[in-house]
């Protein structure tokens, strides 16, 4: 096999089966009509909580804000110690030290967004430094963005090389033995077509992504059910082809328990139950957690409480 060229990569990605938008939307809507009640709902709520990457990605973030978020991650519902912890907190690279400090002794991971998040518009040197800083500060997971401009203009090899380079940094900077997990963010709201989402998924998997992620949360639309469907199909097909499992993370716009249930049903019926695990599926979310907690309290007590019965951030 010769060296990978942009032409060969293009031919390969463009040879993937197309996605029929109407059909994909209909499939996603159909899965959305599943009715998850009683015991199934209780199980799914706890599972969803354990899959959350609890996120703050604001210009106004401070160390205290991050500490407060980490406290919430460790004890989402202080009144009920049976509540599971979230999977990770997701923050900007410069906030990693604060998060590592606050989460010391817990199993909660620190995920840092890097590579000139959210736009991805910077030189490669900047993106690598950004990532290296986060890793040296102790991040367990890197959420990088792809260069959408390069993707949309057909420079797939450039996107591939950037992912591979960041992956290499993750491996080199492995401080605790395991290399940091690499999540690759497509910003599907900017890729727009489902064909692009499918191609981006395969491109990222080829380049070494551990997770593929829909969105930064800074562009609308962020995560949608049909886009997540396309990505779940991609990781399912990738495992059939290679035997390797890749994770999926929808992020942004998932705010209610009802939404989370729809995503879990989709994971279950499209990728399969192997993906129902925080190691293979995450929700990038902030306000979702409180809605899950409210529903959890409702199931436990039989009545709804209110916004002041769950803690902010």
């Amino acid at each position: 096999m010769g060296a990978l060229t942009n032409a060969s990569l293009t031919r390969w990605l463009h040879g993937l089966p197309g996605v029929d938008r109407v059909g994909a939307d209909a499939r996603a809507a159909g899965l959305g009509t599943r009715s998850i009640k009683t015991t199934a709902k209780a199980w799914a709520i706890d599972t969803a909580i354990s899959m959350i990457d609890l996120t703050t990605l604001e210009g106004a973030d401070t160390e205290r804000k991050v500490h407060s978020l980490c406290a919430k991650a460790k004890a989402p519902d202080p009144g009920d110690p049976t509540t599971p912890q979230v999977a990770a907190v997701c923050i900007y690279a410069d906030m990693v030290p604060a998060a590592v400090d606050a989460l010391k002794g817990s199993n909660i991971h620190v995920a840092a967004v890097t590579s000139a998040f959210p736009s991805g518009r910077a030189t490669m040197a900047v993106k690598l430094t950004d990532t290296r800083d986060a890793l040296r500060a102790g991040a367990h997971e890197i959420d990088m963005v792809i260069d959408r401009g390069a993707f949309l203009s057909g420079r797939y090899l450039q996107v591939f090389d950037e992912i591979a380079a960041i992956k290499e940094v993750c491996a080199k900077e492995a401080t605790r033995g395991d290399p940091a997990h690499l999540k690759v963010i497509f910003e599907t709201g900017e890729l727009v077509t489902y064909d692009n989402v499918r191609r981006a998924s395969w491109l990222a998997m080829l380049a070494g992504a551990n997770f593929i992620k829909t969105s930064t949360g800074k562009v609308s639309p962020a995560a949608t059910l049909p886009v997540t469907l396309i990505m779940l199909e991609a990781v399912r097909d990738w495992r059939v082809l290679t035997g390797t499992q890749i994770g999926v993370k929808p992020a942004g716009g998932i705010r209610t328990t009802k939404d989370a249930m729809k995503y879990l049903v989709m994971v279950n019926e499209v990728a399969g139950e192997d993906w129902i695990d925080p190691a293979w599926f995450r929700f990038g979310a902030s306000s979702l957690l409180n809605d899950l907690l409210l529903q959890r309290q409702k199931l436990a007590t039989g009545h709804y409480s209110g916004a002041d019965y769950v803690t902010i951030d």
Partner: protein
Amino acid sequence: MAKFEYAPAPESRAVVTIRPSYGLFIGGEFVESVDGSMFKTISPSSEEVLAEVTEAGEADVEAAVRAARTAFDGSWGRLPGAERGKYLFRIARILQERAREFAVLESLDNGKPIRESRDVDIPLAAAHFFYHAGWADKLEHAGLSGGSGRPPKPLGVVGQVIPWNFPLLMLSWKIAPALAAGNTVVLKPAETTPLTALLFAEVCQQADLPGGVVNILTGAGQTGRHLVEHPGVDKIAFTGSTLVGKAIAGSIAGTRKRATLELGGKAANIVFDDAAIDEAVEGIVNGIFFNQGHVCCAGSRLLVQENVADDVIMRLKRRLQTLRVGDPLDKNTDVGAINSAAQLARIRDLAQIGEAEGATRWSAPCVLPERGFWFAPTVFTDVSQSHRIAQDEIFGPVLSVLTFRTPQEAVAKANNTPYGLSAGIWTEKGSRILWMADQLRAGVVWANTFNRFDPTSPFGGYKESGYGREGGRHGLEAYVTTEATR
């Protein structure tokens, strides 16, 4: 045990009241039969008796046709189109308001999943009434006069016989255009699914529809025969098997009666190698496992291009393992019960014939309930054109998979059937869709979708799938005449 078990999510039966027994709906009232008898209607998912209904006899048919004639000659026949339209709009709205009631009753009596009765049958039934309500005062502008220049007139009394697969929806396909055009009707629902038609009779009362405009006679084949052969009926509209359709065509030959027949099918669902494969798999599933395959236009023959056949079949089987078969009232059920013991026996027979002919049988692993009539979603591969499972309408959740090498071969195989009701094409190439649609002898050709219905779109068959169209402007033609005198 699965990691993520969906807890039971049954729709409540409490929304619908089923009476212990039902009379016949003649002249706007429920009446006792003159010469009929009673029979039981059961729920095919549990074999529970739901109610006793009347098997209308010859005298009952006589009374119903007379009531319909009186209404036609009386106020209904003289009513302006705009007024007829108001009644149809009213019925449509009541169907929407009572949608849950109808959905639960349909699933109980027919065995279909509540997801389908709730999301497909009942909304579409209401949509047919809304659509035809709009035509009632515009018939003169519908291009129905041909070259005659005369305005279209109703035919008179229409006898309608409908099947058990979409009971209320088929009722609406029949009654809405007939009434919009100014006819009166005598309708016979299928003997295994009479209950939503009887509930519809209550809707007619609730809408203050004048007595005799809609008459509903429950019963079996003999009742239908009396209705079809009654000399006072001006037109027959039938949906059902080709065998019965032929008998009807024979019995009315030489009379002045008109007929539209919507009969069987053995549709080809054709998947090309450049199709959107994941969506095509969904279309295959929807084509044959929707409504347990009890669909005349079901995509019961999968024609898949040989170079992607293995991949498509692998994906299809994986997908079928996620289908949830069971309690029709559970909101998560995808495939419900087979409608009757007789239909189940026919499906089993044909499946056995398929095995005996040398096709390879595969059924989705699923636990079937002990009571009721059930058949696991089944796929036959290694099927040849000469196999009976590639030729006969099975009318159940059984898919026959055949392969082709070129578009020409796909067309030849798709058309090589006595039927011609529908077909599906899956390709990302627009020009191929247009070429295929031109070549296929089928009343409906779906491109990159399947089993989509809309009241604006005409539906009907070629060859042994029947004649006449239902829905759209074409469907109205079957209910009007421009003859100078009748």
